[in-house]
């Protein structure tokens, strides 16, 4: 690696990397070497690679600006193939062997990007460019959109399924500490000492926060020794959970926080059994926010050039990674924090060409550096960085008396690194998500937490506290307070070790560095979204006053970094333009998540076959083994049809349909809802629930019932069987099994608590098998001790007895219109009974049928399902008027007198038949008199069910049509303009088969 062509920027020793474990990786197809403990950013800097990406809008060259999650520039595409993932911050990628990363937003390469031409014409691409340009002509918008979509966007997503797995975890704790820097560690230590259950989360791989990247001392020893000791102490406590590599993304109501732990992102592939990421939902009694602060860029010309970096980040690269971000640095600052950094850099071999400080006086901190011979320019600014793909130097100039103009006398200073420090912004994102109220702090020139509205408190620099000793003390206090508030009342703040306590000194706010007259050089505020001062100035000139609207118009702070480095600068520039004080203009809302979350992590294990649970009947395995085709019905997987060799799907469906009408068929109806009702008021309760009466239903009989909502619309239908005086079994449709149970529970808990009724779902207890067809009685009489004769077991009867040697029930009910029974046996015996029926009925040619055939059979009979029970139909609309009792009150009864339900134009259920005998009736078609009439064509109704009927030998359907019952025999059109289908239909009775019910009673 001692190639003289490649400048080496790695220090021979120091840093928290393991030089004995070199790792090879590839960036833009070129091989490099870094070390265990590096990030992709530190490894690239060590190899002298600064040009990482092209910017979003102008395709300007961009490098590495920071060393953390605030990074707005160094976004790369990680991994390859099905694991490819765009827009990952190089500063957060832990290096592993074989890592592959690529630049994005550039073509053909990051070094030579054709779209960089946009930069040259950038004055034609102002704020709101799209809104202004692509407005007209309207018909071209579709074409414009394609072009814009191609040019815009960041990176490409994977098109293959994600092979990794993601996990979810739920946790409760007394105190959640967010941030493992000095304040957070001290808070966790204090809270844990009280015996509280503590969780400590930090987004870095290693605890220590800022201390990882500084040459600080605690108790006169390297600060990281203290960090290691505290971490080990905490880890040894059984009630402490340490979560490194975990970002706290969101803060929700009642102190529920969502964390994302990068469990496998630092591994070559998360294959095997380690999840790639794990989402934690944490309910914390108390929260300590120790989220630190983010350094602000300064806003001068070409401040986005690679090699222009935040000062603190340069320190981090030295201390944490042993990397020099350059050899010859200029530092540009408005506060004292840069002087500690300068000393640190100087001590590690970076030449400090000059420190440019906009403040008029030399501060004591500056004086120390000056005493070491470092050149300091007070009351000066860097007004432009110079260079094309990397900074080569800076132009500096003194400021005028007001500090708002350059006063001439430029100096050019050569450098290969420009460090900037515009002060620090506390990370108040989570505090704000928790609805905390912020206050503008004039001397710190930033917002700090003022008032909490949830059970949380801030500690350390996220609260505007800068000195290390003060941060430790604040952390100890916050941790103890949190434990106390969580009920550990004897808690006291622990003593804190000795440490330095440097602050930032006085800041001289400098929101925009003045430019020479007629300069076109861009001064960037939001680096990720390419928002420059000129965009905000333009927005203000165009009349934008609200910070929220300006944000959306200019896209300021709307990138994946959520404006971590740009919010305050952007707000300040807008305030200056509007001539207002910053707090008057206000801050935009912080919304979750703090950093972007992957869809994989959010969905966790709920994907593929587990996106939702699949419910399976007790006979499911049999259906699978006989080659049934399945279709979903709610969460259930139900057989649609059983295709035999040589059959098409429709062959199978029509065969099954005809077979039921001529022989006997079995259909698995276990998914139908079943509700068990017991208690002495059960009959009265059913009377109040259904439009028809149940008080006089004899034991051993069942009855069809219709249930209304209180607004008079039909809610569900089904049968109720009386098993004993005070014991009933209700059935519901598959879809309404849950809602009906919930509704009955509501009525009993809330409306009629005085009734003695207990309702329990019995759906899962019973395997239900419908046996339908003229041979059904003969089949059943072979397998049960129940007397199946028509005299002993009449239509709508229910009997209990042995079925295939197990205890069960038989209900004589019919959905198909044929002679039919429904068997109920306890589920564990369901398969046994099904198989026994198949064997017992072999000579009767018993055959299974699926949902498709069942649907045709019920349409032929005119039975309604969900399509007709659509929440807009009344009992009368569906032809149940005669069932409505006038002798008792029931739910929905009062609404039947509402004028809207009495008017004569209501839509009513009718049958349809295709007039030409061959054209299908389109699904969901509208019923009209003349589809070619003047628009809008009056719609009389709609098709709710449709099929080809083997029995009628024609296409038939059910429809809801205005005054339908008076239109029987009328010829109308069923038209579906969307599918360009239409057919002439004749309206008829919905009962296509056996309207007198002779078959099912026979």
């Amino acid at each position, binding site marked *: 690696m001692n190639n003289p062509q490649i400048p080496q920027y790695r220090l021979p020793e120091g840093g928290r990397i393991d030089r004995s474990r070199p790792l090879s990786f590839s960036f833009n197809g070129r091989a490099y070497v870094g070390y265990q403990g590096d990030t992709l950013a530190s490894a690239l800097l060590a190899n002298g690679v600064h040009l990482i990406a092209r910017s979003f809008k102008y395709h300007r060259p961009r490098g590495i600006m920071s060393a953390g999650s605030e990074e707005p520039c160094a976004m790369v595409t990680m991994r390859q193939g099905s694991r490819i993932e765009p827009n990952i911050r190089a500063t957060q990628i832990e290096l592993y062997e074989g890592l592959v990363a690529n630049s994005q937003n550039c073509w053909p390469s990051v070094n030579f990007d054709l779209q960089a031409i946009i930069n040259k014409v950038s004055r034609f691409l102002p704020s709101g460019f799209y809104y202004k340009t692509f407005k007209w002509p309207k018909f071209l918008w579709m074409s414009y959109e394609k072009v814009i979509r191609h040019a815009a966007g960041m990176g490409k997503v994977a098109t293959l399924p994600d092979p990794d797995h993601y996990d979810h975890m739920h946790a409760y704790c007394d105190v959640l500490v967010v941030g493992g820097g000095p304040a957070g560690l001290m808070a966790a230590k204090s809270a844990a000492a009280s015996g509280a259950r503590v969780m400590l989360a930090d987004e870095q791989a290693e605890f220590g926060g800022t201390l990882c990247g500084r040459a600080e001392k605690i108790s006169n020893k390297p600060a990281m020794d203290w960090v290691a000791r505290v971490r080990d102490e905490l880890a040894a406590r059984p009630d402490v959970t340490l979560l490194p590599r975990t970002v706290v993304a969101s803060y929700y109501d009642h102190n529920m926080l969502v964390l994302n732990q990068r469990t496998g992102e630092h591994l070559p592939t998360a294959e095997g059994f380690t999840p790639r990421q794990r989402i934690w939902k944490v309910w914390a009694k108390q929260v300590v926010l120790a989220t630190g602060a983010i350094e602000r860029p300064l806003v001068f010309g070409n401040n986005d050039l690679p090699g222009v970096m935040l000062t603190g980040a340069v320190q981090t690269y030295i201390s944490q990674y042993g990397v020099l971000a350059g050899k010859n640095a200029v530092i540009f600052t408005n506060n004292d924090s840069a002087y500690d950094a300068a000393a640190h850099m100087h001590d590690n071999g970076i030449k400090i060409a000059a420190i440019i400080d906009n403040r008029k006086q030399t501060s004591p901190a500056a004086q120390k550096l000056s005493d070491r011979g470092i050149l300091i320019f007070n009351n000066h600014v860097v007004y432009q960085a110079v260079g094309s793909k990397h900074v080569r130097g800076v132009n500096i100039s003194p400021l005028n008396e007001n500090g708002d103009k350059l006063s001439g006398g430029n100096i050019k200073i050569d450098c290969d690194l420009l460090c900037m420090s515009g002060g620090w912004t506390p990370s108040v994102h989570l505090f704000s998500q928790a609805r905390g109220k912020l206050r503008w702090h004039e001397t710190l020139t930033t917002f700090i937490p003022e008032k909490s*509205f949830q059970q949380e408190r801030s500690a350390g620099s996220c609260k505007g506290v800068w000195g290390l000793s003060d941060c430790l003390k604040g952390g100890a206090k916050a941790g103890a307070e949190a434990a106390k508030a969580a009920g550990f009342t004897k808690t006291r703040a622990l003593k804190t070790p000795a440490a330095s306590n440097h602050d930032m000194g006085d800041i001289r706010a400098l929101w925009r560095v003045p430019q020479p007259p007629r300069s076109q050089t861009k001064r960037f505020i939001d680096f990720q979204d390419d928002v420059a001062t000129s965009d905000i100035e333009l927005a203000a000139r165009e009349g934008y006053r609200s910070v929220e609207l300006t944000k959306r118009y200019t896209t300021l702070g709307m990138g994946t970094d959520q404006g971590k480095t740009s919010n305050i600068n952007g707000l300040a520039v807008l305030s200056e333009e509007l001539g207002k004080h910053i707090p008057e203009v206000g801050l935009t809302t912080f919304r979750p998540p703090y950093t972007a979350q992957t869809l994989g992590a959010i969905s966790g294990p709920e994907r593929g076959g587990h996106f939702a649970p699949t419910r399976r009947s007790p006979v499911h395995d049999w259906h699978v083994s006989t080659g049934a085709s399945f279709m979903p019905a709610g969460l259930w997987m139900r057989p649609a049809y059983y295709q035999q060799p040589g059959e098409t799907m429709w062959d199978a469906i029509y065969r099954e349909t005809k077979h039921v009408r001529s022989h006997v068929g079995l259909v698995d109806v276990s998914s139908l809802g079943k509700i068990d009702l017991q208690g002495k008021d059960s009959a009265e309760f059913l009377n109040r629930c259904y439009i028809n009466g149940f008080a006089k239903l004899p034991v051993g009989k069942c009855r069809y019932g219709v249930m209304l909502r209180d*607004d008079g619309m039909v809610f569900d239908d089904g049968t109720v069987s009386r098993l004993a005086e005070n014991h009933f079994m209700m059935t519901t449709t598959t879809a309404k099994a849950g809602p009906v149970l919930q509704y009955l*529970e*509501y009525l009993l808990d*809330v409306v009629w*608590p005085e009734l003695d009724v207990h309702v329990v779902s019995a759906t899962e207890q019973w395997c239900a098998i419908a046996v339908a067809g003229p041979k059904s009685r003969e089949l059943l009489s072979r397998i049960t001790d129940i007397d199946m004769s028509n005299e002993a077991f009449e239509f709508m009867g229910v009997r209990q007895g042995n079925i295939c040697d197990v205890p069960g029930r038989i209900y004589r009910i019919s959905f198909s219109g044929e002679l039919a029974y429904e068997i109920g046996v306890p589920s564990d015996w369901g398969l046994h009974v099904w198989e026994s029926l198949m064997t017992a009925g072999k000579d009767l040619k018993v055959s299974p049928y699926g949902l498709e055939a069942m649907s045709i059979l019920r349409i032929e009979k005119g039975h309604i399902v969900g399509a007709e029970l659509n929440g807009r139909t009344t009992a009368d609309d569906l032809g149940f008027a005669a069932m409505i009792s006038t002798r008792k*009150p029931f739910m929905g009864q*009062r609404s039947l*007198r509402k*004028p809207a339900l009495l008017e004569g134009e209501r839509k009513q259920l009718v049958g349809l038949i295709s007039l030409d005998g061959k054209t299908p009736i389109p699904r969901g078609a509208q019923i009209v008199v003349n589809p070619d009439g003047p628009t809008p064509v009056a719609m009389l109704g709609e098709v709710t069910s449709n099929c080809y009927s083997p029995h009628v030998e024609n296409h038939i359907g059910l429809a809801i049509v205005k005054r339908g019952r008076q239109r029987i025999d009328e010829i109308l059109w069923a038209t579906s303009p969307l599918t360009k289908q239409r057919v002439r239909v004749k309206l008829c009775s919905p009962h296509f088969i056996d309207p007198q019910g002779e078959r099912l009673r026979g």
Partner: protein
Amino acid sequence: MLIKCPWCGDRSLAEFSYQGDATIIRPSDPLSLSDNQWNEYLNLRNNPKGWHDEIWQHLNGCRKHFKARRNVVTHEIADTKPMDGSLQGGRS
């Protein structure tokens, strides 16, 4: 959110189902009501900013309905009680 079921204690929102306004009582004799009175019961609801008495069901838990006094601005829940209990606190 955490909701305190009067029986099961604090549980995640995911286990609960909102069941409407607890201040609305279903009339005992709906047929005696005018169209307007019935409409009022059936369709009209207040939308108060702040405290609101609600019915919730611990649907994926003990399945019981109960009353809750919730601040619809802050989501703070001042009290929960069984259906026959009376809610305390919350209103300032």
